[in-house]
């Protein structure tokens, strides 16, 4: 094989670098564990705001809010992107039947310098905000942290929001948008839009959120019990939750939700019982294989994705075919096969499904290799992947958001591109309780 094998390279642990044989210290070092959440964390709602190019793609009809242009009524693209986040968070809370008081934290990320969109949206959203930068992997990072916060009992509900804007990203990372350049076939198209996910235990829809918690959610020990009650009682959950609330009457936050949440969200108990849950996650680490070409993000990110996927599969001990799909973020057309090759060298024969390839139709749309951007995998996850899990078509999904952590400065200074990938395992409810 030309160039030699890369087995063990991308998944190499610390201390195994350089000339040391790849296997010489294998086993001597602790393998970095994946996170297995004590309770599956339900994804209560997932909503999308999509730009015009995204609507013209294969998922066009499935987005919740569709924009006519890239400005969305704002004066600048940067403001437009912030507005996407505001709208997405608002819609996500409404879809989950939550009021702002029920949300304990917003985890937001975007591609603008200093997290511009997230910070400015935070002005309006006016909730505790944790800004995350993982480039296009922010979605995975947010879901991982959000699930951890909920699982630990530190937050009742968390909203994860990610956005990107094609024009805002182009002008920041590359050239002014009206400047004429020819892009190579490996170039990718930054998605315009935002996706928001509500994580947490219970909500207006299945009655669990309506359960009072006078202790202020401070006691994780009693959470699993209550959660199980909530899930067992999906069908008549509303009545029980309501009763509990009346009985205690002590919790103003949950009590305030009574009757004010959207009726349709509360009444949809069939949908409530089919909520996808986050069961495990593997945080990524930076992998840099020396790619410098900013027009080949997929090629740069593939080793990071392969590392995270291989570690997740090894740590979880499930066969690769236990997953109905392994969806990578934005490796796109030419990065995905590279990642598959790397995984094959690690001993995993898997077929990947890439969000960057799903978002656009390359035969009709001039997006070159596919989509990218923080919103890319968020839009596909919310509009395409999660509905499949919810519908029971997929029992288990491994979502691996990939990010290229370059900056215009690092690129101009000739640095290679550090990349990262965060994996989040999402299971259908019946599946979630299994190991």
């Amino acid at each position, binding site marked *: 094989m030309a160039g030699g094998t890369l087995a063990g390279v991308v998944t190499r642990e610390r201390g195994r670098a350089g000339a040391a044989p790849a296997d010489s210290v294998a086993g001597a070092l602790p393998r970095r564990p994946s996170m297995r959440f004590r309770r599956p964390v339900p994804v209560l709602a997932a909503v999308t705001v999509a730009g015009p190019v995204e609507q013209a793609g294969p998922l066009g009809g499935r987005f919740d809010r569709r924009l006519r242009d890239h400005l969305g009524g704002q004066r600048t693209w940067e403001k437009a992107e912030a507005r996407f986040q505001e709208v997405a968070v608002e819609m996500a809370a409404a879809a989950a039947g939550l009021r702002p008081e029920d949300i304990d934290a917003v985890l937001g990320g975007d591609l603008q310098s200093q997290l511009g969109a997230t910070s400015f949206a935070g002005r309006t959203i006016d909730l505790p905000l944790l800004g995350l930068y993982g480039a296009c992997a922010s979605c995975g990072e947010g879901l991982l942290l959000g699930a951890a916060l909920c699982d630990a009992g530190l937050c009742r509900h968390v909203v994860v929001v990610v956005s990107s804007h094609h024009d805002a990203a182009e002008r920041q990372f590359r050239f002014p948008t009206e400047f*004429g350049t020819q892009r190579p076939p490996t170039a990718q198209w930054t998605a315009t839009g935002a996706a928001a996910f509500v994580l947490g235990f219970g909500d207006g829809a299945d009655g669990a959120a309506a359960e009072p918690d006078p202790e202020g959610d401070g006691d994780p020990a009693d959470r699993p019990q209550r959660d199980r009650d909530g899930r067992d009682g999906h069908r008549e959950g509303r009545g029980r939750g309501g009763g509990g609330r009346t009985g205690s009457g002590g919790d103003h936050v949950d009590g305030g939700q009574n009757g004010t949440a959207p009726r349709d969200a509360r009444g949809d108990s069939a949908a409530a019982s089919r909520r996808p849950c986050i069961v495990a996650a593997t945080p990524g680490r930076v992998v840099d294989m020396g790619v410098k070409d900013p027009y080949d993000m997929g090629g740069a990110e593939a080793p990071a994705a392969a590392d995270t996927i291989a570690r997740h599969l090894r740590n979880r001990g499930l066969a690769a075919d236990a997953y109905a799909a392994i969806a990578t973020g934005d490796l796109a057309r030419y990065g995905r096969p590279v990642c598959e*090759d790397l995984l094959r060298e690690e001993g995993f024969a898997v077929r990947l499904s890439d969000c960057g390839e799903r978002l656009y139709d390359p035969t009709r749309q001039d997006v070159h290799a596919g989509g990218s951007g923080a919103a890319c995998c968020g839009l596909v996850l919310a509009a395409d992947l999660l509905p499949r899990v919810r519908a029971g078509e997929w029992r288990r999904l491994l979502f691996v958001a990939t990010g290229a952590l370059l900056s215009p400065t690092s690129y101009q200074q000739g640095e290679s591109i550090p990349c990262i990938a965060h994996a989040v395992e999402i299971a259908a409810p019946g599946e979630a309780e299994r190991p």
Partner: protein
Amino acid sequence: MQANAEERRRYAALRARHKPPLPHLTNLTLAFVVGGSFCAVGQIFYNYFAREGLPPDEAGAFTAVAIALIGGVLTGLGLYDDIARVGGMGASLPISGFSNSIVAPAMEYKREGWVLGVGAKMFTVAGPVIVYGLLTSLVVAGVYLLGHGRLRLPGWLRP
């Protein structure tokens, strides 16, 4: 994890197996057609200016101004980036491409104001072209003048 030189080389080889070849033939053909079209339009302008009585030097300069204007207007209409995406160097090389590289950032950074936006960013793309263009012309002019004996090197520089 940062790869060492050998691993980088191996990875580059793996990546090269999946990397699509650049569509050179298509690109060259389209660049010829698009660039040729700009030149044809330029020739029409040149003939017009010459017929109206301008000497060849001035007709050439007027033609350059006209093509630059067309490039600027097409940029303003949001068409030039589409033309260049297809035409590549055929759209970048004529002087219309040069005006595109100035008008595009001027439009883009208007939102940051006239001084810090338009004024500061207008030449972000064209700036290097101007700097090194001037430098090159200076060197070429020096060589030319030396060759024609019109410029004498100071004694300490002569061999």
